[in-house]
Structures are given as structure tokens and as C-alpha cells.
């Protein structure tokens, strides 16, 4: 198994494993590594454990383990690169190693903590110590802050972080005053200034990089610039192990592993682009040829930094099977060219190509062979694209125009006289409730409405789970419904006949409703109506209005004797943010030929009694949708002049 780059927190583990009581936090790394990771060809070797099987067996074992004896011996050698590595890690990596947690007790989570700012370390002699003298400073503070009377309770510093000229420390509320007493104490020849820092430990990102880190970043940037071909939009990171500048920086000596270097390089790349689009525009191709990589895990950061790279050269590496590439299976979705020439996988698994083609849906060129045409990619994409079920006009299967009569009367009355509306159509068994959908899709330019007037009554079962709450939000009987409707904001619905395009109304007959007289155990017939549309409402007590979309489902049945012939059995109102309704697909009109038109004319004329001329007008207005034409005829019947009818001639 190839070694992976250190994960978050692993530095801390490495610390505790050394068992040194005075090691403070994750600032200093003690991971050993062999001196130079370049193989005989001068290639950068990213896989230390593969060395065993590598012909060059004389090389020392580079496999870095945090607690081996080799680690300890190597950590004693002061190395100039160690510090650089720390800084680059701190500046670029963003892991938690800088804020070291020391002896954190469980209580620390609940205890209020105070952050203090300590100034003076930079001026002290300790600053030249390894690690910048932070460790010595913290020991000093803990020791001195312990007041004589309280030997039993040691002062603890929970966290520490060096930031510029200051060291930020965090301690419990109890300990903080003791530490503050050390203000003006002398530490290693410098006077300490300790003050409270109510702003807390400064954000790592906002702290300016030290000059060394900046320098390293600058150097990496210059490495990148020499390897970037602006015309080809190619970032050439091939044979990094031979790069004189990287070698000079000592990346292949000491503790730094090539994997970390690669991550740092990617982090610097990331910083160069303001947007993902700028990155896509600038870098289309990347070459990592000849880097002795044997698992994509070692260069995982590439897919984070360049997820949309189009061409990738991985030739002359050590990939030997599909498993070594597995981690990229679901990444790099834009990849068109992938070169894996001169990798062991070519010999070890000659069928790898078939698999790779399925992994990367846009792959055209694999190791120099065309595996797909752009047309094939486009066709595959088109085939995988879902197509919504097409929209048709209203499905209004009315019974004796009961539904039409109800809905045309209902909407204006709901706006103007809810009390009478309820009295007419609702009885003791009728139910009403409202459900708010706050997550519905809406046009992006429309401000989202507030739901204050509705949400406390919302019976949305996704949110209201308890039976009593559901019960409370269901209004049964004309009295409850009348009372509740008074509490809902006043509304204004568009006129159904004049603005039919603002509604979609579907209805059809249903059977087996309760017989209001109780004679028929099999029940009676009725209908279900769903209406989708919009309304404007006005917030109670203000003039603030809002436009909302709604869907409303009615179950209608015959009324009891002596009451209105139609009753509302159930009325469910769903409200959501405003969005225009779709128009039904106009494709129908183009497919209707003249013969069909003639038939529709005759049929409409027969059903309505209108002359063929007026039937044609009516059908033209409805785009030759017969049902729509018939519906609009019924809506406007009263306004149609008498000469339109055959009998009137």
C-alpha cells in the first residue's frame, strides 16, 4: 500500500507517539524521511513503500513511520528544510496543526475560555530556539502563573498559536486572571505584555504569511510559471524530480515528501485563480508524465484543484492496475484525453481501456487511441438526458357543467365574501386545511414571500407530525371554516374567464362518496377538481401585498336535501412562492391537418349550435384545441351574439 499524505490530525498523533512530555502541539513535526527520493532515472519517487520491489534495493527504507527508531534519530538532526516545511504547511495546508491542543480535558468543551495576547517573544532570546521559543514561553507562563497558595491546581493553557509578533493563548476563565498577572514579567531578556484578546485567536487566513513562507510561495509560483505554456494552456508538471529549482529548495531532501510538495504546488495553483472559470480557461491540459506515481492517491489534490481538466498525461508512471486509478473513477468528468502510456498497467491488464472508457463518459483519446467520437459523446449525453412528461391542455371532464359552475363562482366569492361562500357549499362534514410549501421552485428574480400569515396554520404533514397538531389544523364544518377563513389574509384571484391562461383546472368524476341521505351503502358520485393558479394577498392590518401560487383540490358531492345541491366534501389548499404556469405544448396545432379541422368544426357546431363561421373563430382562438374551444364557448356563452347560433338565423 502506498503511503498517503498526512491526514488532518495525524501530526498530533505523531506528536503523542513520540512520548516526549515537553513536546508542544503540532507545530514541530517529527516525521522522519529519507534524504532524497529520486530514483535512478532522476524521477521523483512518490511511493516510498514500492521501493522494496524496486530494482534499486540499496536505497534506505524511506517509509516514514511516526514512532520508529529511525524517526527519532533523524529528528535530532537540525535541518534547514524542516522549518520551511512547517511554514509552508501552515500557510498552505490549512490543517489544524497550528492551533495545538495541549492536554485538553473533557471539561474544556463546556468551560468558558478566555483568549490572551502575549507580546515579547520575538524580542526574547528564546525566539532563536527551535520552534521559535513558543514551547519555552508556554512552560514559563504556566509555571509562573501558579500562585503560591494554589499548588494543587496547575494553570493550564488550552491552546496556543503564534501569529506575527504575538502568541495567542487560550485558558479557562479561572486561570486567565492568574496569567494576566504575569504582565511585565521578564522572559528570556524581554518584557512580556499580556493583554486580553476579546477578538479571540485571529483567523489563520487573515494572518499575514511570514516572509519565509511568502518566499517559498513565490518560489513555487516561479516553478509553476516556468512550467506553464500559455499558448497550449498546458501545465507541464512532468519529471518534477529533476526540477533544479525544486531540488534547490530542498523539497526532495529532509522531511518534505513529494506528496506534500505536490499538494503545496496545487494549493499555490489554486491561489492563482479568482474563479473556477478562470482556472478552466487558463489550464486545459496537465502533464504529470514521468513522476513515478503508482496510485492516484498521491496526486489526489490534482482533482480538487483542476476538477475540469480536459487533457491529462500520466504516461511514464508506475500505475500497474485499475485499483491504482480507482479513486478518480467518479472525478474528472470533463476528461477527453488520458495518456497512460508506459505504465505497467499496459502489460498487466491489457483490458484496462474498456474499463477506463466507462469511467470517463467524455473520454475521446486514451493513450493515443481514439475511443469515442465527439458525436458519440453528444449522442450519449442526449440519450441520458431526461425529458419531462409533456404538458397537455386542461383535462376537464365535467358532469353537467357542475365543476365549471362551481369553480367560476368559487374564486370571486372567496375573494369577496368567504362567509357566504362557505355557507353555500360547505356543511357540517366539510373539511378545509392549508399547507405551505416553502421550498417550491420559483423565478430567481422574484423576492421570496414571507409566510407569517399562513405558516402557523400550515398542515403540511412533512412538518406537522403529531396527531394533535394535525387535528388542530384541520377545520371541519361550516362554522370552523368560516371562522378560519376570516383569519386568512384577503385575496385577489385573477378573473377565471378573462385570464384563463393563469389557471390550469383539471377535473373528473369519482364514485363512492358518502350518501348524504344514507340510503345507498355503495355511495354516490361526485367529482374531484384540482385548480392551479395564483392570487395576490394583503397582509392583515397593512397594505403589503404579495403574489403567490396555489394548488387547490376539491372533492365535490351532492348536497343533503334542502341544502345546496353541491357540497364541498374536502378542500385542500397548497400555497407556494409565485411561479408562472407552463403553457401547454403548442405542437398540437402544427399536427392538425385540414381534414381534422373540418371534423372539429362540425363537431363544435353540432355541440354548441354555433354557425360554422363562429365555430371556426372559436377554434382559432383555442389554437384548434377542441376541449379548450368548447370550454371557452361555455365560459363566454352569455356574451356571444345571437347571430352566432344557427337557430338564430
Amino acid at each position, binding site marked *: 500500500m502506498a503511503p498517503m499524505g498526512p491526514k488532518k490530525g495525524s501530526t498530533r498523533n505523531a506528536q503523542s507517539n513520540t512520548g516526549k512530555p515537553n513536546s508542544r502541539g503540532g507545530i514541530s513535526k517529527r516525521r522522519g524521511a529519507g534524504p532524497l527520493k529520486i530514483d535512478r532515472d532522476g524521477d521523483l519517487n512518490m511511493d516510498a513503500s514500492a521501493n522494496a520491489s524496486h530494482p534499486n534495493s540499496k536505497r534506505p527504507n524511506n517509509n516514514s513511520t511516526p514512532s520508529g527508531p529511525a524517526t527519532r534519530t533523524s529528528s535530532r538532526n537540525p535541518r534547514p528544510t524542516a522549518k520551511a516545511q512547517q511554514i509552508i504547511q501552515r500557510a498552505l495546508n490549512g490543517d489544524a496543526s497550528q492551533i495545538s491542543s495541549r492536554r485538553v480535558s473533557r471539561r474544556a468543551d463546556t468551560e468558558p475560555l478566555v483568549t490572551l495576547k502575549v507580546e515579547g517573544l520575538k524580542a526574547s532570546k528564546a525566539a532563536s530556539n527551535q520552534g521559535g521559543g513558543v514551547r519555552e514561553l508556554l512552560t514559563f507562563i504556566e509555571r509562573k502563573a501558579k500562585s503560591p497558595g494554589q499548588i494543587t491546581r496547575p494553570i493550564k493553557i488550552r491552546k496556543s498559536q503564534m501569529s506575527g509578533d504575538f502568541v495567542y493563548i487560550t485558558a479557562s476563565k479561572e486561570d486567565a486572571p492568574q496569567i494576566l498577572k504575569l504582565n511585565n514579567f521578564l522572559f528570556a531578556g524581554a518584557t512580556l505584555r499580556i493583554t486580553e484578546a476579546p477578538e479571540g485567536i485571529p483567523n489563520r487566513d487573515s494572518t499575514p504569511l511570514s516572509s519565509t513562507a511568502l518566499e517559498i510561495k513565490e518560489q513555487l509560483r516561479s516553478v509553476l510559471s516556468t512550467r506553464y505554456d500559455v499558448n497550449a494552456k498546458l501545465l507541464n508538471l512532468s519529471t518534477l524530480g529533476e526540477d533544479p529549482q525544486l531540488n534547490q529548495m530542498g523539497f526532495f531532501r529532509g522531511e518534505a515528501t513529494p506528496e506534500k510538495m505536490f499538494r503545496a504546488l496545487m494549493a499555490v495553483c489554486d491561489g492563482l485563480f479568482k474563479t473556477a472559470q478562470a482556472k478552466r480557461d487558463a489550464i486545459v491540459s496537465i502533464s504529470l508524465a514521468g513522476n513515478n506515481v503508482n496510485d492516484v492517491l498521491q496526486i489526489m489534490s490534482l482533482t480538487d484543484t483542476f476538477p475540469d481538466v480536459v487533457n491529462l498525461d500520466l504516461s511514464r508512471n508506475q500505475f500497474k492496475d485499475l485499483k491504482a486509478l480507482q479513486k478518480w473513477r467518479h472525478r474528472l468528468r470533463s476528461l477527453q484525453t488520458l495518456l497512460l502510456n508506459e505504465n505497467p498497467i499496459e502489460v498487466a491488464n491489457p483490458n484496462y481501456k474498456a474499463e477506463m472508457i466507462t469511467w470517463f463518459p467524455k473520454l475521446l483519446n486514451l493513450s493515443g487511441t481514439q475511443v469515442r467520437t465527439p458525436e458519440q459523446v453528444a449522442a450519449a449525453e442526449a440519450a441520458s438526458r431526461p425529458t419531462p*412528461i409533456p404538458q397537455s391542455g*386542461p*383535462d376537464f371532464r365535467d358532469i353537467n357543467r357542475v365543476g365549471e359552475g362551481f369553480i367560476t363562482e368559487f374564486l370571486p366569492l372567496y375573494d369577496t365574501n368567504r362567509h357566504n361562500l362557505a355557507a353555500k357549499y360547505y356543511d357540517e362534514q366539510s*373539511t378545509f386545511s392549508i399547507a405551505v410549501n416553502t421550498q417550491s*421552485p420559483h423565478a430567481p428574480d422574484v423576492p421570496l414571500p414571507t409566510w407569517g400569515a399562513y405558516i402557523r396554520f400550515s398542515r403540511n404533514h412533512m412538518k406537522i407530525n403529531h396527531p394533535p397538531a394535525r387535528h388542530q389544523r384541520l377545520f371541519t364544518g361550516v362554522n370552523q371554516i368560516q371562522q378560519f377563513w376570516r383569519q386568512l389574509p384577503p385575496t385577489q384571484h385573477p378573473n377565471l374567464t378573462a385570464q384563463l391562461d393563469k389557471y*390550469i383546472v383539471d377535473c373528473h368524476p369519482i364514485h363512492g362518496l358518502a350518501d348524504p341521505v*344514507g340510503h345507498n351503502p355503495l355511495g354516490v358520485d361526485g367529482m374531484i377538481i*384540482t385548480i392551479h393558479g395564483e392570487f395576490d394577498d394583503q397582509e392583515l392590518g397593512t397594505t403589503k401585498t404579495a403574489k403567490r401560487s396555489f394548488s387547490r383540490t376539491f372533492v365535490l358531492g351532492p348536497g343533503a336535501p334542502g341544502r345546496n345541491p353541491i357540497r364541498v366534501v374536502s378542500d385542500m389548499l397548497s400555497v407556494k412562492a409565485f411561479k408562472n*404556469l407552463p403553457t401547454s405544448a403548442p405542437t398540437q396545432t402544427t399536427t392538425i391537418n385540414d381534414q381534422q379541422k373540418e371534423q372539429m368544426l362540425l363537431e363544435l357546431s353540432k355541440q354548441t349550435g354555433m354557425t360554422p363561421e363562429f365555430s371556426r373563430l372559436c377554434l382559432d382562438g383555442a389554437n384548434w384545441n377542441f376541449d379548450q374551444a368548447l370550454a371557452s364557448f361555455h365560459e363566454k356563452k352569455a356574451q356571444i351574439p345571437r347571430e352566432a347560433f344557427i337557430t338564430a338565423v
Partner: protein
Amino acid sequence: MANLPSLDTQARVASDAAQNFVEHYYQSLNKRQPLAQYYASISPHLTSASVKPDISINGRVVESTAAYEALLDAQGANVHYDIASFDAHPVNPNYGLGCPENLSPAADANEGGGGPGRGKVAKSIKDGDRVSFAVQVSGTIRYGNPSDAPVAANAAAEAGNAAAVEGAPVETGFNESWLLVPHWEALGRNAARGLRKWVVVSQNFRAF
């Protein structure tokens, strides 16, 4: 008729049954599993009483569950229905169409269990087993896999031109209103296991 479930029971049964239906139905839908078990056409008793599901999809009357599934298949893969809201009302406290002999109220008398109104059938009615109910669902349909989104197309989709954008996963709202009735085969002593207790007789779908 005196033994109807209380309004409280009716509402609770409707809510619970609707919850169960919504959870299972849309999961099956998203996995594109067979949907026939949810519809009245699965019940011989209902079918023999001429009860058949009335399915209306975007204004188009669909003949059968198989025809609806064909429409769903024609949509292609990667269509996901997400429920944001649903509500349910009882409609008929004691639905009667297609009720078999052995479950009719008269059956109680034959069993000699204490006369009409006191037997198992009466209790079943009282418990709300025969409530028919309406459900209104409101949610979002996502067409396409969000991870496959080309960025430019995404931006276009946000501009509101939903279905017209090529290749982008688009979202559209939908409303679906349902009417469900008791599934007689799932009631009674010797009912087969694993049947839905309520089945669909009316489905009204609209995407917008």
C-alpha cells in the same frame, strides 16, 4: 350506520395512511419500481365493482398504470421526485364500492358474534379501516443528475427557462392530488400479507 368512525378517527386514519402512501409511493417512483400495487386495478373486488383508477398526467388521461409507467420510462433516467408538503382529508368514512360479502355489515350477523353493529365488521368500520381519503402532494421534480451539470447550463436554468435548457438538470414544481379507497383484499381475517391497505382510484398530476 350508527357505527361510523369519529371525525377524529377519520382524520387520523387519513393522515397516517396518506403518510404511509406518500413515503412508499414516491420512493418506488424514484427507484422506478413497479407501481401497480398502489392502484385499485390490483384489487379484483374493486375491479369487479367497475372501480378503476382514473389517472390524469399533465392533462392527459392515462389508460392504465402500465401506460403511466411507460410515460415515466419515456422520461429517462435520473428523474427525482422530492416531496416538500402533503396534506390529507378523509372523504368517505365508510367506503362501500366493491365490498365483498364476507366483509359486508351483514356478515357480522351471520357469525353470531353478537348481532349487527357489534361484530368484527362493525369494529373495523369504527376503527376507520374503510375510510377513503384525499391527498394533496406538493414538491419538486429534478430532471438530471446535479453532479453532471455543466456550469454554463446551470446558470441558464437559474434564469428561469426551465425545460428549454439543454443538458442542464432542471427543477420543476409539481402538484399531485390523490384519492385512495380501502383495498378489500388487504382487509379481513385471511388477507394476504404485504398488500397496500389503501389503493388509488384517482390521480391528478401537474408539473409546473
